[in-house]
């Protein structure tokens, strides 16, 4: 997995609440488009007009946010479907960090599986960041995961395990496989305790 240590990049404001993973990537794209091409269809309903032309009102179609690698979002960002393609699609347009007051939980977990840093911050802080992101003069943020600071001043916290995975580019499966003996022992005891669970 790609490591995440420090990122200095343009942040785009996407303030609306409850942006769901269907809006981030449509199911037919999930089923038909290879992982590395999903970026083309990220936010399809918002980025493009019905005739296929770019929607000039959508923030990611405008300078400097066209180059954004950070999104400052509203409540419950990434709610809905578990589709990890939503994270792949965001990564496909260069997004490495999403900041919101709250996230759809499955989406939040999926971010960390893909080297994307998801940061929860109180609503007033995200509103302040959103205001900064809205002005091209202040839209460039530095996100430092090592020190857990945005622009050197705004502190954030991510789960220690998630932080370590991103900083070191660790593979979750590899970490768990190292615990095989524990899993085997647990399962052996469980087979005696709850035999009906095992067909």
């Amino acid at each position: 997995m790609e490591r995440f240590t420090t990122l200095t990049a343009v942040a785009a404001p996407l303030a609306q609440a409850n942006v769901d993973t269907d809006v981030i990537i449509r199911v037919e794209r999930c089923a038909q488009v290879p992982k590395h091409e999903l970026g083309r269809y990220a936010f399809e309903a918002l980025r493009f007009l019905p005739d296929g032309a770019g929607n000039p009102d959508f923030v990611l179609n405008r300078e400097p946010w066209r180059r954004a690698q950070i999104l400052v979002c509203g409540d419950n960002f990434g709610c809905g479907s578990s589709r990890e393609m939503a994270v792949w699609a965001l990564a496909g347009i260069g997004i490495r960090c999403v900041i919101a007051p709250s996230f759809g939980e499955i989406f939040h977990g999926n971010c960390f599986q893909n080297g994307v840093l998801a940061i929860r911050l109180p609503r007033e802080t995200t509103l302040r960041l959103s205001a900064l992101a809205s002005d091209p003069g202040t839209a460039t943020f530095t996100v430092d995961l090592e020190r857990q600071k945005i622009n050197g001043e705004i502190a954030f916290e991510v789960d220690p395990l998630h932080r370590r995975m991103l900083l070191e580019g660790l593979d979750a499966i590899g970490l768990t496989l190292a615990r095989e003996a524990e899993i085997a022992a647990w399962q052996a005891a469980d087979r005696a305790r709850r035999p009906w669970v095992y067909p």
Partner: protein
Amino acid sequence: MSRTLFDKVWDEHAVADLGGGMQLLHVDRHLLHDLGGGKALEELRGRGLKVRNPELTFATPDHVVGTEPGARGTRDWALKLVDSLRTETRRAGVTLFDVGDEAQGIVHVIAPELGLTQPGTLVVCGDSHTCTNGALGAIGFGIGSSEVVHVLATQTIVQKRPKTLRARFDGAPARGVHAKDMILALIGRIGAAGGNGCAAEYAGAGVRALDMEGRMTLCNLSIELGAKIGMVAPDETTFAWLEGRRFAPRGALRERALAYWRSLASDPGARFDREVEVDCAALAPQVTWGTSPEDVIAVDGVVPAAKPDALAYMGLAAGRPIAGTRIDRVFIGSCTNSRLSDLRVAASVARKGKVASHVTAWVVPGSMGVKRAAEREGLDEVFRAAGFEWREPGCSMCVGANGELVEPEARCVSTSNRNFVGRQGPRARTHLASPATAAACALAGEITDVRALA
């Protein structure tokens, strides 16, 4: 110490504490489907790994298979996904309930129906509506593609322990008000993020009175509340419902299981991080007006002056009654509302008239099991006689993955779970409602109050 239902089931599955609130949990049942199952197994193989417990892993095609009556009509690109699921499950020794198998259906319909999901089990699937399984007193939650591969390789999942939320439903719902209305009302009350970070437990006399299928509808919409997990304590209704199901324990094993299952209910005095109450007696049938399940009102209510973008997308004007809004389609199906009791209620409404001539109405049973049972009761004939299309089992128009879509700007009353922008097709307008309300709307050709159909 008093513990909640959730605490008991979670603690039972803890293999290791990973620090910082993260735990490694054992997975009792892993369900795979056609949208990602084949790919995940392929990736596992590519990494030189094997499915650790193929006997705890089960697969079925549901998301992308066509549901055209008789013919199926699965498209070529979708057939490739189904073929990959076939090849990979065969290679890995994973049981597949394939198209044509009497057990095929929507994963969250068949897992309980086959007795795979049992009280106190931990169930995961690469689909957010896995929370449906909580109706049996299990912990069920959706996971992403990477986590699917992790579970295949290790039979465990890394999770942060959530907070707990208890929603009490008291009072008896009036005629025409169903489980779907109860849960939509709760989402309307606390919002689509109201259960964020929580495992929900649904309790109270209103929940006790629900049959298992109603409880599944309740738990199914937990994720629309922001809660990844939703549960109902198992009781005699649960135990009776499970008896004799294909994978449910029998004989002496069932007796042992029953003793354990009876210990699972939340202890008196167990503490929840948040509690909410809903008075079922005060509820009217619910219908959504916007593009989030929280945008919900009573069917005899007025479209609120909120969320202008959502109103524009939905083509609705604030301040007008929602009833009387002309519709184009009705969809009765999905892991929310496609079970036998849902179809019985819808059929009892369908008996009272004919689908309006400008409306296309579909009934998509949730599984082959449901389809056969409904046909034995003659429900298919009732639907067909009223002008509904009786289709094959699958996710169909809920997820819109096989070209089974609502046309741009067409309006659909749907028993599914998501009214998101573009969910049922680009620019499609979805109104979520119960099967009773959906069937009544099909006959009326507009959004209507099922209670008026005497």
